[in-house]
């Protein structure tokens, strides 16, 4: 039986209490994306400053539960200043850890046969650093959407920028 300690790890509570990269960037020039979880009313606003293939700055606003807020905070800390390729790769690894396979990710190179999504690849947690603390969320399926809320907004933002 999963216990609360699997979910509310110390790193998660820390990022919940003191969220990093909180706020919004002036838009324009920054790109602004909103994400909603209609189930619980959580909302996130992700502001992205992308130039020369690099995510130069990111800020998050909005409100939500400890999982959605800490996941957003951890995400912002992990992707800020990174080349877009690396950000995309991190999103892919994170979403794999969350067992969420979405066609919209586009660059899911690991999915061989289209109709056999059963076995997710083993995740190299070392790539994730502090984000690995969110692993326990998988044991609470209802909360996965909380954990992926800002990641989906980030993906959407990068996609919009790529197709602009």
């Amino acid at each position, binding site marked *: *039986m999963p*216990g*609360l300690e699997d*979910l*509310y790890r110390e790193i998660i*509570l820390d990022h919940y209490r003191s969220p990093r990269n909180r706020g919004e960037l002036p838009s324009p020039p920054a790109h602004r994306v909103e994400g909603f979880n209609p*189930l*619980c*009313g*959580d*909302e996130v606003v992700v502001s992205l400053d992308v130039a020369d293939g690099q995510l130069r700055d990111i800020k998050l606003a909005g*409100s*939500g*539960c*400890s*999982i959605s*807020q800490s996941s957003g905070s951890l995400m912002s800390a992990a992707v800020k200043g990174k080349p877009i390729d690396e950000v995309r790769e991190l999103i892919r690894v994170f979403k794999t850890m969350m067992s969420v396979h979405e066609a919209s990710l586009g660059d899911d190179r690991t999915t061989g046969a289209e109709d056999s999504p059963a076995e997710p690849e083993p995740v190299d947690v070392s790539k994730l650093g502090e984000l690995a603390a969110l692993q326990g969320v998988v044991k*609470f399926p209802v*909360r996965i959407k*909380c954990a992926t809320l800002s990641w989906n907004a980030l993906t959407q933002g990068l996609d919009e920028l790529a197709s602009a």
Partner: protein
Amino acid sequence: MTVHDPIDVEVIRKDFPLLTRTVHDRPIVYLDSASSSLQPRQVLAAMDHYYETTHANVHRGVYATAEGATELYEGARRKVGRFIGAPDPKREIVFTKNATEALNLVANSWGRSNLAKGDVVVLTEMEHHANLVPWLMLAESIGLSLRYLPIDGQGRLDLSDLDRIVDGAKVVALSAMSNVLGTINPVPTIAEAAHRAGAVVVVDGAQSVPHLPTNVTTLGADFLAFSAHKMEGPTGIGVLWGRAELLAAMPPFLGGGGMILDVSLEGFTPAEPPWRFEAGTPPIAEAVGLAAAVDYLTGVGMEHIVAHERLITTYAIEALHERLGPDCTIFGPPPGGDRGGVLSLAYRDVHAHDLAQVLDQFGVCVRPGHHCAKPLMRKLGVTATARASIGLYNDERDIDTLIEGLNHVGTVFG
């Protein structure tokens, strides 16, 4: 002072099989009846018995079981009608999928044939999306003018401007009891003002019918919608009660088998109400289950249910205040005659989802979220609350466990 509880909860609880299960090695504490109630074994047995002995489609066959099924289905209609004091139970009860579909039926069938561009529809700020979105959809389609009765600081409707707000309105649609605040609205007072203004009164009884004795005439309703699964019945069936003359003048909502008198390749003649509004094979077993639920509630006694739930609600509000102090906020009115057993809670600044997650570890089932009332949540200044709601099978121990869980929230989130 000890107030006599007319219900022996220990006896009641034995009727509800789900209450015997454990969650995370703890006895389940079910505090989510506003979302969906539990079912007594009498309801489950009635549905099983129907499937095992009498199942057939209704209104079609001439063989014995088909006649038996039809009689059970129509018998359920009459029973439900009598339960809410319908003047003509046989003709005024329409079975739908749920209260939401019943309200959509009114907005579409009555609304589209009686409302035109610019007509005024009055709603309240505390409506569930089920009594809001159908009117918003209709407004988008034909151009209605929407007005709202506001709520005051204690979560009651502010009626100081009632006559002006309903003046010229064609419809006043409101919830008899809020699914977020527990407020029992003074429907008769509002209906009287609405009728003086010439409006039709649509009542969302999803929360009130399961917990309060209901009489459509004293309520002053022209339409009343509710769901079986919130009143100890099964999912998949709801009820629309409408005044016979209103239903008689309404066009069908959904088309198909069972709702026609005659069909040709050129057109159709609809059946009389209530069958006019029941296209396709209806939820027969569910109607049987709903009838059994009505028998169950009647057997316990709606007056007893009100008294018991008021005791537990008062105990809950007082105990939450006493034991948790300012850490816990309860939205809605203080204990009293207009206070139903729906407790929307906030604990410190911990998000409702986190509250519900910790409470789950104590076996406590509460509902986190916006409760399908986003405009009300905005008015309250929150995005979500954790809602504990009380049914006839709850007792003081359930509330004590809730508080034990909330105390642990404080430990986890420090």
